[in-house]
């Protein structure tokens, strides 16, 4: 059972205090988008074995959504950060690169 630190209130929350929200950094496609873009937005998920970015809500705490970078294979957590960003912050990326030199990057 995971522990993730909420970047808003600083609580090291256990998984039962959180609710999961799937993959992070999806770009929304609305009316006017192509079928392929909309399909990718709705259904195509990376589901990697390894470094992954995902959404979590501190549901039983401050109620805020935040994002987490972790390894899906080892459950190592590389960091958590506020949701108001379209890409992982540089320090998160740097932390991942330091621990997973073979990682191919966010894109």
């Amino acid at each position: 059972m995971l522990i993730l630190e909420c970047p808003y209130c600083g609580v090291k929350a256990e998984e039962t205090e959180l609710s999961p929200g799937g993959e992070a950094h999806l770009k929304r496609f609305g009316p006017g988008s192509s079928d392929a873009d909309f399909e990718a937005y709705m259904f195509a998920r990376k589901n990697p074995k390894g470094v992954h970015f995902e959404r979590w809500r501190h549901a039983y705490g401050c109620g805020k959504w935040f994002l987490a970078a972790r390894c899906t294979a080892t459950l190592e957590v590389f960091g958590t950060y506020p949701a108001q960003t379209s890409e992982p912050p540089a320090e998160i990326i740097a932390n991942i690169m330091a621990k997973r030199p073979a990682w191919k990057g966010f894109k």
Partner: protein
Amino acid sequence: MSTRLKSGGRLIDRSASLEFTFNGKRLKGYAGDTLAAALLANDQMLVGRSFKYHRPRGIVASGAEEPNALVNLGSGARLEPNQRATTTEVFDGLQATSQNHWPSLEHDVGVLNNYAARFLPAGFYYKTFIHPRAAWKHVFEPIIRQSAGLGRAPKDRDADRYEQAYGFADLLVAGGGIAGLQAALVAARAGARVWIVEQTAVWGGRAPVDGDVIDGMPAATWVDAAVTELASLPNVTLRVRTMAAGVYDHGYVLLDEKVADHTPGDGRPKHRLWRMRVGRIINATGAIERPLSFAGNDIPGVMLASAVRDYVVNWAVSPGDRTVVVTNNDDGYRTAITLKEAGMDVPCVIDARVRADGALPARARGLGIRVETGRGIAKVKGGKRVEGIEMCLQAGEGAASSFIACDAVAMSGGWSPVVHLWSHCGGKLTWDDAHAFFRPDATRPPITHDGSAMVYAAGAANGALHEALADATHRAKIALQSLGMTAETATAPAHDLPEESPMEAVWIMPQGAPIALKAKMWLDYQNDVKVSDVQLAAREGYESVEHTKRYTTLGMATDQGKLSNINGLAVLAGSLNTEIPLVGTTTFRPPYTPVTLGALAGEARGEIFQPLRKTPMHDWHEKNGAYFEPVGYWRRPYCFPRAGETHEQAVHREVLNTRSNVGLLDASTLGKIIVKGPDAGRFLDMLYTGVMSTLPIGKCRYGLMCNEQGFLSDDGVVARIDEDTWLCHTTSGGADRIHGWMEDWLQCEWWDWQVFTANVTEQYAQVAVVGPKARKVLEKLGGMDVSKEAVPFMGWADGTLGGFPVRVYRISFSGELSYEIAVPASHGAAFWAACVAAGAEFGAMPYGTEGLHVMRAEKGFIMIGDETDGTVIPQDLGLDWAISKKKADFLGKRGQERSFLASADRWKLVGFETLDGSVIADGAYIIDAGVNANNQRKVQGRVTSTYHSPTLGRGIAMGLLRHGPVRMGEVVEFTKLDGSTVKAKVVNAVFYDKDGEKQNV
């Protein structure tokens, strides 16, 4: 026979004698006894029957690894099946009965299976399941069901209570032997927050039994001092009777504390499940001795050598008068020495090794014990009890060289570290050839949240059988260092042990045993898996250890392979002509020993099994006979049956009264979310399919919400409160979900929009006053103008009614003149009572959710969850009028443009009236011509809501039908539960007051 010795017994209090029963027989024991010790003291060696062949089974071990001595404890509401006699503390009045026998332990009919053993080989279940099927069903299953199985599940409600608690520590030490205590001392002195837990009632583990000397004092003295010091430190928590059941991700550990197993009925919780979060775990769980595989090693009286020693030293119980010790290592000699020194007879130590020249064999010889090297046991003689053994050459094929009479055999096949906690979360093992065991590989530990090691194995659990204290000190230091603490000056106490010569792996005794002997060599005592079974599995192609385990059921008994695992692997490796490490091990999974379901449920039973949400009027409903139904966690009145009324009759009365007089509905559960800010209108226009930004202040508008796929997710009435404030009503089940949905979009997508939300669902009690006389009731309450002009249909107004501060919404879900009145929840019960009183002269009656459903169906109003199921778009329900064509975007708009959803061939909402007036069955389908590829009847639609309408006196229904609205007047056929069909006419879904005149007065 097994008997109590005249003196000794470090754990028993001879001044406190206790009485207990086994299979109804009254027996005596002492405080400090385990049930197993007390049974042996009463010469009760036979304790059960094996699972498959019903062979007699005796006590083999002295701890959690015991495979045989499982009993039913207690009776009635305190009956617990499958309790280990070896870990059960005796108390006065304990009742135990043996399991898995019929009609009695002594005379068991299932032992017939023994003679049928050749029909029950490895893989029997698989083979029989497959072919011939009829044989399984009519022959094997009935017989096996009658004879196999363990204890029976209790039938009564559990009289005990259980609880859970959360604990936190820097370091958790699992195991209260000398290694665990030393690790805890090192960490505690360094200032770490330490927990140390021990599964038995006693600290110290094996060292005091084996006579270890620590820092010049007897181990028991050192243990007492260590415990005293730990208990004096404020940063240390010590718990005995607490088993570390499992290690999980990120330092999560479950501990099962047996608070009151030994004091039943004293008012304390029986068990407490600790849900721990710890920084590091020291796995100091010791080691378990392995049996040796020789023919007849399952006959009662054959025991682990260490267990024999435990019974003598700890409880002053000798399992036999004449005990043969058979070993492949020096440690086994300790048992011979202990027995001899206790005055018992040890006819012989049979050592499989060619040489036995260590200090312990020398001591044994010095005591006059005969030692035979290079020998093994060819077979054990006896039925329900050992009568003697035949000795043979270990290197031979089992030709007996001599018979030795004895009534017990103490066997030692070496030791295996208890690596469960290390392995639960992915720690890897390495094969240690010198000791012939798997031990934790410190280079591949289970890791925690930051990628560092989470578990450190220490002492015997780490394979350090003889340097436990030094190893524990070392591991504790590393663990502390990884936590940013230091214990550099900590040193290990001096630990004096006799030198031991190397052990020699012996997997089959004798080495060249023929099949007849192998078929009597038990690996898994409880599941009756023998050496020959594993070899058969190998021959049949089961090369993976995981497959072999399932095929033979090796290690799948309640001891989960604690005794059988390594021996089984070795036999498999031998059969495959490969090395043990290449065969690998099976996966260790929590719990280490079973955790009772009560502990896992904790406080969640009875009234607090789950949170029941109650409205402020709940007590009134209860007092007035409401029949409740669950709506999410809410409990809402379904109807208010009167004396002699069925629920159906009550619903009909409530509907008719509401339509002709006035009804009162507790609508408090309706979701209420305030949305405020400069961008609130824009935000709601994205959320709803319709336009909310243009809603005038003081007005209400019905709205639909869809998910991004376009499917309808929730609906409700939105009220504009002021320039930048809206109040959104959601469905009763949807309030939290929709509030979360709003926050998701505001926080994660449109974080620059200026909008705040607040879920005020529970701030207000809400009462719907519904029916032609509704206005009269409100006028009677008095305080505000509730006329059509002051509060028009789809308008709202603030004011007071009967002295209560209220907000009145003119909205209707029934088609009648209707006011929904919100009042602060703290006044809800009083306001409801005021409405009941004011309504009395107008015939007001409360109505429940079923009446609400019937009335909305009569009006053709949809219900989220009835008309929708996550695959329905608003257009399917004819709700195009509530979808803005002008808006460039809203959640779900793009999804609804997908070709399948935009198709003209979708199933669409219409009404149905059966030709015979009957009610269509819930979930009925509308059949179509022909069959599909699976030879199933084709369908063209289904019912979504179906009721008897008391207003119309007939069955009415709504449903989805292909091309529905253009097929008005057509007759279709619905399926019935009896396989026949019922004809129904396609009609408009609005059955009552089609022009909506009644609600707008």
